[in-house]
């Protein structure tokens, strides 16, 4: 995928139609997903609040996927010095942060009725929070270094280290929680698996992924255009 699209022109040609296509598919998945989700029968445990799940869970999934994309793109930009990979990484970070934030917010909105607290220090919650901080650190570092290429390299290193670390973080957080409280807050995973819930959940999950894909391509295209504009400017200034 990366290798095939390494060439900017090929990528631009590809994404010209691929981006809108992904967007359409995303809509086609999300709209029915939402409809089914919102019309799903209230859960006998959680009542209507269970519907938050259809926003929340896919957001959480997508956030992790987004970080994987960020890490992959950073790897390519660092090792093979692909300018396009760097643009992709830069484009992925805010999206990932947004989805993570969505998971956090919807989650804590859900937590209020479920756990009676906006926030509990549950393993999963904490790991998502850390994930959000990784995204934040990436963007902050990138914006803080004024020489753009250097900032890109350092940020790529950070993303890569974060990628190596992410499983460690997840594992450690789980381990930490299980150690401290065996009977951690039980998730209503059981009822959630009933088809009435499962189908819209899967629809939404797929829809989120396609939406992310579409937005990612759009942002990457924008970044590529921005760089072309800059280099043109410079050439004019020197000419």
């Amino acid at each position, binding site marked *: 995928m990366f290798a095939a699209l390494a060439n900017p022109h090929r990528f631009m040609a590809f994404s010209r139609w691929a981006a809108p296509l992904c967007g359409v598919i995303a809509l086609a998945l999300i709209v029915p997903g939402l409809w089914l989700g919102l019309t799903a029968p209230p859960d006998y445990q959680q009542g209507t609040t269970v519907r938050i799940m259809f926003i929340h869970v896919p957001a959480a999934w997508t956030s992790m996927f987004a970080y994987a994309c960020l890490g992959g793109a950073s790897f390519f930009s660092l090792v093979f010095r692909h300018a396009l990979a760097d643009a992709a990484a830069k484009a992925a970070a805010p999206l990932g942060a947004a989805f993570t934030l969505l998971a956090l917010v919807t989650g804590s909105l859900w937590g209020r009725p479920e756990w009676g607290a906006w*926030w*509990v220090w549950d393993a999963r919650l904490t790991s998502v929070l850390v994930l959000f*901080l990784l995204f934040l650190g990436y963007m902050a570092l990138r914006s803080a270094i004024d020489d753009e290429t250097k900032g890109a390299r350092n940020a790529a290193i950070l993303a890569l280290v974060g990628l190596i670390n992410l499983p460690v973080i997840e594992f450690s957080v789980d381990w930490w929680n299980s150690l*401290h409280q065996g009977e951690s807050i039980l998730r209503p995973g059981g009822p959630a698996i009933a088809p009435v819930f499962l189908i819209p959940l899967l629809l939404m999950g797929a829809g989120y992924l396609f939406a992310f894909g579409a937005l990612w391509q759009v942002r990457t295209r924008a970044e590529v255009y921005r760089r072309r504009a800059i280099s043109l400017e410079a050439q004019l200034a020197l000419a």
Partner: protein
Amino acid sequence: MSALLRLYRRELALAWNGGGGPLLALGFYAAVTALAPLAIGPEPERLRVIAPGFAWIALALASLLSLDRLYERDFEDGALDLLALGPLPLEAVAAIKALAQWTAAGAPLALAAPFAATALGAPPALSGMVLATAAIGALAFAFVGGLGAALALGSRRGGLIIAVIVLPLITPPVIFGGGALSAFTGGLPWLSGFLALIAYALAAAALCPLFAAMACRTAVS
């Protein structure tokens, strides 16, 4: 006047990491807050008790972190001479530096403090109190920390000076504020501690610039 504004804007720009300043402060606070339960354990009853005090450590630490090099850069690259010869007395410069620090780091951190405390299990009713104490405390930290940064200038053992002078000076506001908070939580009379904090902040804002300016003059001479 325009010079004063200019200086403030410059210090602000230097303190904010390319606009990310407040966001960065929030991220820092979130990270530090997340560490607390990780180290101590997620049990709410454990966390609740440390919530206020911990919000304070984080605040003080953040101030120390960002104040570390408030003057040193200007000293090393010669800008301190320029500031010393400028239209404003060094006292004003020192005050503006501290204020800019507060604007860039202290205020956002103060805004974040209630969320941190609540996330750690402090009753949301505490938020207003936490915000107020944090904002005022951050002001005190900014001025005291600025003094420490100025005193450390050029001394071969700058860090030690910070440890010896700043830590003792920073402890009182921490105690006042934290005391007021836990008193408020416990339903005890908290006003005295709160007023003491305000008094300390005002005193710091009034006195620290003077001494900081003295330190700067010694450094450039």
